[in-house]
């Protein structure tokens, strides 16, 4: 999607402390022009803080921020040409919806008639055209969030910072908004940084994903890389659902867990290890030949919309298996004995105690 992998935004050794609390120790990051990068990470890991640093709302204690090769660490906020959607919306309470959205355009000296028509367009995009004259406090939570989104998008900034911009929207709307944001971003070549707690969002929408933890970058890669080749057990665990089994590698290099011998594509020195397998990569009673096969008893069944989750007791461990619901499967019942199978590539192994 990005034609040239030219670097656009770069954080160099950024550090932030609030009083005695060292929230971000030292962060390095490089985002390409026109790229959309997702920040994934547990609550409180420093995503919002990083975004605020980029926007210039917080000054870093250390390090510098470069945009297009130019050091902007000291550049005033309003000269940065960035758009930001705030986690708390931060709508202007004294302006109606249209004026909120048109604000950024007016700041760019766009004639007010033009600004209003572009604002109206942006509002239609977030499906709020009919509420253009309301004040923010007369809107529902999700409606406010969409106004905030429209306000940031309408200015087509060179860098767009989105802090959980869709967290209060329902699935349908979120899908639509995602498509809209992505289309606009690609079409105008905007570089975007997207904070989200929703992995589907991160993985499906963004060019690359940053997994953060305690103010540090754990992994920075494409969605496939992060999902398929997680750099650490933390990443594997955080991105996508996984089963975690305690295991060990013997002196001879054999991998064992839950009383079974397993095969993995990874090689590690002998010692205690953690084995991670994604629930939907496990087949139940499948005829096909797989590298790993274990037997267990179904101990729980949960229906979660498009999926069914089976909890299967294997030795002393519990393994969760996910399958798309389908009508042709003869329903399993709790207590049934099943055979689980998965491939060596799907068996991720990390040294124990890493997380």
């Amino acid at each position, binding site marked *: 999607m990005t034609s040239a992998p030219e670097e656009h935004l770069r954080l160099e050794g950024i550090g932030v402390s609030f009083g005695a609390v060292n929230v971000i120790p030292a962060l390095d990051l490089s985002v390409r022009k026109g790229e959309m990068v997702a920040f994934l990470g547990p609550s409180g890991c420093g995503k919002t803080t990083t975004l605020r640093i980029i*926007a210039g709302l917080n000054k870093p204690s250390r390090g510098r921020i470069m945009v297009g090769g130019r050091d902007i660490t000291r550049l005033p906020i309003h000269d940065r040409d960035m758009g930001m959607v*705030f986690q708390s919306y931060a709508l202007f309470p*004294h*302006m109606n919806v249209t004026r909120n959205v048109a*604000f950024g355009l007016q700041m*760019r000296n766009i004639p007010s008639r033009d600004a209003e028509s572009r604002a109206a367009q942006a509002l239609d995009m977030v499906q709020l055209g009919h509420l253009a004259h309301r004040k923010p406090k007369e809107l529902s939570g999700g409606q406010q969030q969409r106004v905030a989104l429209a*306000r940031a998008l309408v200015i087509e900034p060179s860098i767009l910072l989105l802090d959980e911009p869709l967290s209060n929207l329902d699935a349908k709307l979120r899908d639509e908004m995602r498509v809209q944001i992505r289309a606009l971003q690609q079409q105008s070549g905007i570089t975007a940084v997207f904070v989200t707690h929703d992995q589907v969002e991160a993985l499906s929408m963004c060019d690359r994903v940053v997994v953060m933890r305690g103010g540090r970058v754990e992994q920075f890669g494409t969605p496939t890389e992060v999902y398929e080749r997680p750099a650490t057990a933390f990443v594997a665990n955080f991105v996508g659902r996984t089963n975690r089994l305690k295991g060990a590698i013997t002196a001879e290099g054999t991998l064992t867990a839950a009383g079974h011998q397993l095969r993995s594509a990874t090689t590690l020195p002998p010692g205690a290890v953690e084995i991670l397998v994604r629930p939907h990569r496990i087949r139940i009673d499948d005829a096909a030949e797989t590298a790993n096969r274990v037997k267990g008893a179904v101990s729980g069944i949960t229906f979660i919309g498009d999926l069914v989750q089976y909890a299967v007791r294997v030795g002393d461990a519990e393994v969760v298996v996910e399958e798309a619901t389908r009508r042709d499967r003869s329903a399993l019942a709790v207590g049934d004995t099943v055979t689980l199978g998965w491939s060596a590539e799907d068996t991720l192994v990390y040294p124990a105690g890493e997380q």
Partner: protein
Amino acid sequence: MEIHKTSWPMRILVFLLFVYLLAPVILVFPLSFSGDQVLRFPPSFWSTRWYSALFANSQMLQAFWTSLSLAAIVTALSIVIAVPAAWVMTRLTFAGRDLLFNLFTAPLLLPTIVLGLAILIVFASFGLLATMHGLVFAHLVVTLPYALRVLAVSLSTQDRACEEAARTLGAKPLTVFFRVTVPMLTPGIVAAAALCFLVSFDEVVITLFLTGPRISTLPVELYNYVYNQADPLVAAASALLILLTLAVIMIVERAMGLGKAFVK
């Protein structure tokens, strides 16, 4: 919002407190129609003679216009000067900020009688006595601390996220200030302006020292008047002032929806 509807006991309490607050003001109206020579309640008979006396008193009318323009100028200047100052005091950090803030609001701490006396001495040497400039300046000394205090409290309790949002949208600090900070500060500005106007319009003590044969304000005229005779003319003047204010506010409300300014 429903829960913010006030309960009945509370409404009764508020009503009683309003009665207390307004008792002397309400009394002004019957007093102004008194036929007596002195302020006494209830009057022994009614008449409108004090209103005629008031309108015949050209000095009083002249002073009223002086006071009105003085208060208007002082209020405007106070807001124009105090809003940026309050902004600096609450949004920037620099050494000695607290000290400066206390210094700027310190004139509040001086009884006006002292301040009047003290200013008199200094102004005399600047030739500012009994001039409009001098009065404006002296009143600013008193009103600015009020404005600064009130605005600083309002500003520091204001949510900053909106200012940040405006800045990321490309608004320069000055624009943020005028387009976001100030509108959100409206209740504070209204309160500060009201205070300044009233303080200036009601200020007697300092003004007493600074007025002269050539210029005088209404409170000073009234004060001088009641110093010698406490007749109901002052009640008539007050009654008219109150009605005038109500009328002005009503017109402005109709024309511009002033209600919005007072709304949160």
